């Protein structure tokens, strides 16, 4: 019944002498929040960057919504339907919140230089639609009142939310969130969890990298655990929590021996 949004088949990536990823496979079903966890240096970010086209994989097959997908250029990844946020927020700081979201409509709009200079009817219609959609998205993540404020002046939590609004604006098949809760306090985290759940309720599929284990366990439908570039476990939060390999990876094997 559930159909597959992203299928990663035996992806590998090596940096010099370090095998950052070896034969990692991943399947994400539609409408799920799929967590990706692991200790520092486990290869989470590498896998994330491979999926989003920032790194070129050495090996591996990819399928996005049933179609073969080759993540070899970052801008094509967005067109193909994967939107991402960044661990260390990367907004367009000097542009307003509204413009930040409007930029993200780039891949889904068409008007070029001549349309813009001549202000054609098609341009005006597209521009109005872009602005309207951007406002809707800002309202949706709860920062509509800051539409005309420069992104750099927003609070940390609001910047995170703006990044999510920007990702949604690309009409993604899959939204990849890279440690969205990093640096957030308890209140901000609660708001974030609500937002992610609301996005899922709209039918979006989410890939979530996160350090905060509690947040991941509460939010995810399925979790994949990486360690030393290999997938050591995959399953529901409960299954993963009880997995011996996962406990070893996080706490060291001595803990199990006791």
């Amino acid at each position: 019944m559930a159909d597959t949004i992203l299928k990663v088949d035996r992806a590998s990536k090596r940096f010099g002498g370090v095998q950052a990823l070896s034969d990692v496979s991943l399947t994400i079903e539609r409408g799920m929040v799929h967590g990706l966890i692991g200790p520092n240096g486990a290869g989470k970010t590498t896998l994330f960057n491979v999926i989003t086209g920032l790194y070129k994989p050495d090996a591996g097959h990819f399928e996005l919504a049933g179609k073969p997908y080759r993540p070899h250029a970052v801008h094509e990844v967005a067109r193909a339907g994967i939107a991402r946020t960044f661990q260390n927020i990367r907004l367009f700081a000097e542009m307003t919140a509204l413009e930040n979201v409007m930029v993200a409509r780039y891949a889904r709009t068409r008007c070029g230089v001549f349309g813009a200079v001549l202000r054609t009817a098609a341009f005006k219609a597209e521009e109005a639609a872009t602005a309207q959609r951007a406002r809707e998205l800002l309202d949706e993540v709860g920062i509509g009142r800051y539409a005309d404020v420069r992104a750099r002046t927003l609070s940390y939590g609001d910047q995170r939310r703006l990044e999510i609004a920007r990702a949604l604006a690309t009409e993604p098949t899959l939204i990849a969130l890279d440690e969205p809760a990093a640096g957030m306090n308890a209140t901000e985290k609660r708001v974030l969890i609500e937002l992610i759940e609301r996005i899922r309720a709209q039918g979006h599929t989410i890939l979530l990298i996160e350090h905060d284990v509690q947040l991941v366990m509460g939010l995810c439908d399925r979790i994949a655990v990486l360690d030393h570039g290999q997938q050591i476990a995959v399953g529901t939060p409960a299954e993963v929590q009880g997995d011996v390999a996962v406990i070893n990876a996080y706490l060291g094997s001595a803990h199990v021996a006791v």
Partner: protein
Amino acid sequence: MKPARLGLIVLAAVALLVMPLVAQQFGNAWVRIIDTALLYVLLALGLNIVVGYAGLLDLGYVAFYAVGAYLFALLASPQLTDNFPAIAAMYPDGLHAPLWLVIPLGALLAGLAGLVLGAPTLKLRGDYLAIVTLGFGEIIRVFLNNLEQPINITNGPRGIGPIDSITIFGWDLSKKWNLFGLDIPSVTNHYYLFLAVVLLAVLICRRLERSRIGRAWMAIREDEIAARAMGIHTRNLKLLAFGIGATFGGVSGVLFAGFQGFVSPESFALQESVMIVAMVVLGGMGHLPGVIVGALLLAVLPEALRYVADPLQHLTNGRLDASILRQLLIALAMIGIMLARPRGLWPAPDNAR
């Protein structure tokens, strides 16, 4: 449109139309200064697309100005017919390309030069890009200086002239004419043409700025990786910025050649590129009113300082050289402005647009 705003626009329009008529009462030299300033505004507007919007520091922008100027010079002077009998045979009356042909041609050629410069520099950023573009600007100037051997194309450091004056629909801008007893000299004619071109350029910039393309440029300026993650093809858009920015330089060059009647490589030195970058930065990068103010100020300031430098020279019994003194005063003024207003004289307001 609110009546107050409409009134302001009408007032500004009248002021712009009357200004040269007033200025010429104090001597045509003043109108000439304003004409040159308008050409600099056009250059600054073009460079603003590359530096201000797309965030690509281009230190060789004057090359496109040179391309436009030399194109008009070659197509509307005896240079080619004198040196190439074949061309002289084809055009027994000499080459006199009309402006309406040379302007689009100059824009196109400069745009192509922009792409040629842009293509190899796409992977470079910041300081590295600045150095390569600086080199490009110098290459063009060195070419102009040396393309007289073995075949004389640019006439080397001696330059090309006389270039045809600008003629629009049979109306020769270099001729004085009389309107209700008021003498309209050549410089004032040129003022109106340049003003029209500058206004058109402002309109184009403004429309580009508030479009999908303009936003994509600014996104690249702010964060290239994030821009790519939004699906923006950064390579193509950077090339587009280089190309469109260069067309402004080309058009400005064509007008310059027609206005001066003579071009030589001297006019396209590194100093000019630096000045144009300074205009954009000093005025307020990426903010059109700021860029215009910056260009006007830096174009007029050296001339105005003449009136300060000369008395100072007399004061020191001629020991201080006026031209060096002027350079010093310009530098001091620029340092002063940047210290007082680090984001430019007139940056974009914080709560935007």
